[in-house]
């Protein structure tokens, strides 16, 4: 082999091996067809418009290219003097107009279907928070135990900071996925608790903004069981890139079993919510919650990101009066990015988090906060 060719081969191999770690499903070129009727029709519409554009492009750019090749001065071309033709102008106004009508008809049909969210089998409220989603299954019967939970990114921070190798579902994994039954019309009522987010699952062809003060409706009838992943689509601040959506679509009986299990868990958590916890348990659980929920703003080591996100290390609140600290965590700080956690975490989690922050990062209040302390303040409110 020639030395030059060898060099090229070596460079190519190096380039390929450099990037081949990420090769799985890496060359997706097109929109997914998805797993709902609407998503397939959206895909068809997308392809139809794309082919129209390709056809128009081939003709227009074809004429242009032909002119560029043949009508050049270097080839002795002499410019023609033709100029203005009402007939031609009318033709190239009318034809695009007709093509647009041909595009608008199927677009209107698909949109009308996608907008019909009536007669759902199951309603789920989707609430955007900085930077996680809450799912609340709306009850048919007010006596039923409510199923609702928060869904946060579960990809370890070490993978994001390149200290650990990345999983296949890097940034697309959550602690509590949304579970829905297949072949049922599930309606999502989308809103937000703080800034505008957007709930998007490409395989369902649904994307809707989650806007504080508004409730938007979308729906999906998922036909294939599976795990479907999406992401927040509207810039919502610091961790916008880190609030994925994971939906498990399962057969009805599996769904029913999961739902019943969730209800039992809710009852159990309720029962546990006033029992005392040990310092070791509180510190361990608190650290886990801190890393999942608080770290983005207050940062590792509680150093914060001044001035928007204050440090917890040495903070006068965290080292000060416990009641004030509990109230701040429960109610947030209006007008800032500090959210109210009264609903986002249960009393055991709240107490553990407080114990952790009041005894970590060099803070040494020595407090062991109990769920009862939190409950007392919750009830007083």
């Amino acid at each position, binding site marked *: 082999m020639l030395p030059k060719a060898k060099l090229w081969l070596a460079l190519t191999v190096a380039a390929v091996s450099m*990037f081949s770690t990420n090769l*799985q499903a*890496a*060359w997706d*070129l097109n*929109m997914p067809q998805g797993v709902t009727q609407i998503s397939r029709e959206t895909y068809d*519409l*997308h392809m139809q*418009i794309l082919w129209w554009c390709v056809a128009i*492009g081939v003709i227009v750019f074809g*004429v242009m290219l032909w*002119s560029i090749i043949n*009508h*050049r*001065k270097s080839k002795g071309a002499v*410019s*023609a003097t033709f*100029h*203005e*033709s009402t007939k031609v*102008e009318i033709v*190239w*106004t009318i034809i695009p*107009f007709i093509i647009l009508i041909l595009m*608008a008809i199927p*677009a*209107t049909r698909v949109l009308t279907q996608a907008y019909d969210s009536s007669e759902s089998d199951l309603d789920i409220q989707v609430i955007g928070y900085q930077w996680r989603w809450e799912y609340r299954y709306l009850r048919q019967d007010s006596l039923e135990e409510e199923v609702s939970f928060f869904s946060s990114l579960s990809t370890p921070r070490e993978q*994001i*900071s390149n200290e650990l190798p*990345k999983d296949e*579902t890097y*940034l697309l994994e959550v602690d509590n996925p949304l579970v829905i039954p297949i072949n049922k019309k599930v309606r999502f009522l989308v809103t937000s608790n*703080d*800034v*505008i987010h*957007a709930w*998007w699952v*490409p395989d369902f*062809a649904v*994307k*809707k*903004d989650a806007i504080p*003060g*508004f409730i*938007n409706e979308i729906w999906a009838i998922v036909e294939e069981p599976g795990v479907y992943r999406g*992401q*927040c*689509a509207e*810039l919502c*601040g*610091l961790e916008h*890139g*880190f609030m994925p959506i994971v939906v498990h679509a399962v057969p009805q009986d599996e769904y029913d079993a999961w739902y019943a299990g969730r209800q039992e868990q809710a009852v159990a958590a309720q029962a546990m919510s006033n029992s005392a916890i040990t310092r070791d348990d509180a510190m361990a659980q608190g650290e886990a919650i801190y890393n999942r929920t608080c770290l*983005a703003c207050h940062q590792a080591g509680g150093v914060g990101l*001044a*001035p*928007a996100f204050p440090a917890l290390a040495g903070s006068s609140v965290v080292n000060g009066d416990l009641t004030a600290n509990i109230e701040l965590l429960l109610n947030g700080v209006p*007008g*800032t*990015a500090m959210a109210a956690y009264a609903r986002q975490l249960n009393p055991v989690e709240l107490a553990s988090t407080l114990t952790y922050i009041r005894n970590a990062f060099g803070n040494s209040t020595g407090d062991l906060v109990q769920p009862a302390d939190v409950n007392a303040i919750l009830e007083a409110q």
Partner: protein
Amino acid sequence: MSAAHDDHHHGPAKGITRWLFTTNHKDIGSLYLWFSFAMFLLGGTFAMVIRAELFQPGLQLVEPNFFNQMTTMHGLIMVFGAVMPAFVGLANWMIPMMIGAPDMALPRMNNWSFWILPFAFAMLSSTLLMDGGAPNFGWTFYAPLSTTYAPASVTFFIFAVHIMGASSIMGSINIIATILNMRAPGMTLMKMPLFVWTWLITAYLLIAVMPVLAGVVTMMLFDIHFGTSFFNAAGGGDPVLFQHVFWFFGHPEVYIMILPAFGVVSAIIPTFARKRLFGYDSMVYATASIAFLSFIVWAHHMFTVGMPIAGELFFMYATMLIAVPTGVKVFNWVATMFRGSMTFETPMLFAIAFVVLFTMGGFTGLMLAITPADFQYHDTYFVVAHFHYVLVPGAVFSIMAATYYWLPKWTGYMYDERLGKLHFWLSFVGVNVLFFPQHFLGLAGMPRRIPDYALQFADFNWISSIGGFLFGASQLILLVVVIKCVKGGKKATAQVWEGAQGLEWTVESPAPYHTFTTPPDPKLIHAQ
């Protein structure tokens, strides 16, 4: 011309005062163009940071908060600092010469409208050094992220936007006053070069929508500092109202950045095809139609906010209609090239690339107009690819085409054609490697404005980044070409280009400091 009098007004003043106190349209045009190029490099640097962070999955170089500041500042600086001032600079230089006027109608205001810009952008850029950092809520600054949840520097951002708006409004008033009052005898409206026509319409768009932008940032200011709740749902306000007001400005703004580009390309293609523009009248009407339609399509940026279906349908149909006048323009350019006698100097290369790549951006624009499909495209890299195709190989390429086209007229010397062509080809390859893969990323599901991404997006991202670095580095060639050309080179003739038509080509190169102190001979004014 100036020999008859001998007071100091005839030549430029010496030193820095020439530039500080100048009321000369050519000096002010140069100031705008240099300023725009500086902002282009600054905004481009921010883009390089973005592409470097996105080169591989994981966070390598910057924190998410700083990444958001980069996307925000990149957008604001490119739109308000690079593209808009560049077109105002071209207008200043060329409009008086094209219509046979001695200067702009309001020269002192002209000075003022330029000189407030550096202060606005100094203030905007200084937010990067402030506690809490620069604006980090995207160049579209949706409330309440930009109000309740904004860094403290948002107030400086609001003030900077107010100043930029004032500058644009003053510039527009000046352009309209000049075009309507100062045309040479014989220069009827329908004999004006298309660049003048497109700028006349653009100036009206600016006057119509800049106050709307000022209004929306003022509402933000009140929400932040004076306890109002325009956009705060908890106080009875409406976050969607922000988007309606913003995009009522924002969509015409898109055409503000592209209509003058149409004018530039409509000047260059006939010159190098050595053939009259195919349909001048229909080009004027198409420009006016696009300007009208730009006011009734704004909510196509908001298809996912949950509008009623009647609203979605109206904005879909209205948006699709824009394809008709835009098509008329593209067909006209192609018909002008057809059976011409073409040569391919750098301005022509940029103009042809403009027609092809802008049209590709137009195609994706049409796809985005289709509401149900837009639900999949919205806020993904497909949108990023779309608007960068219309803005970079669209608006920016037209500015570069205009620079190469008129540079000999401005400096009196021919630029280095070999370097110009090198600049073109590197830019052309770079811009496509940069933005074409972003279509695929968006379709595959990558949201925009994220500092890190899932692994299936890795390959197209590194390709895009390499294209970005190539495109970014290539722009330094333009700087070299311009500096070389200012310093010297082959002497340019008055005509410069064999096929060039119009009054600006009847004066010597470089154009004298004062042109048309007496009106040009009406016989020199031809039908377009």
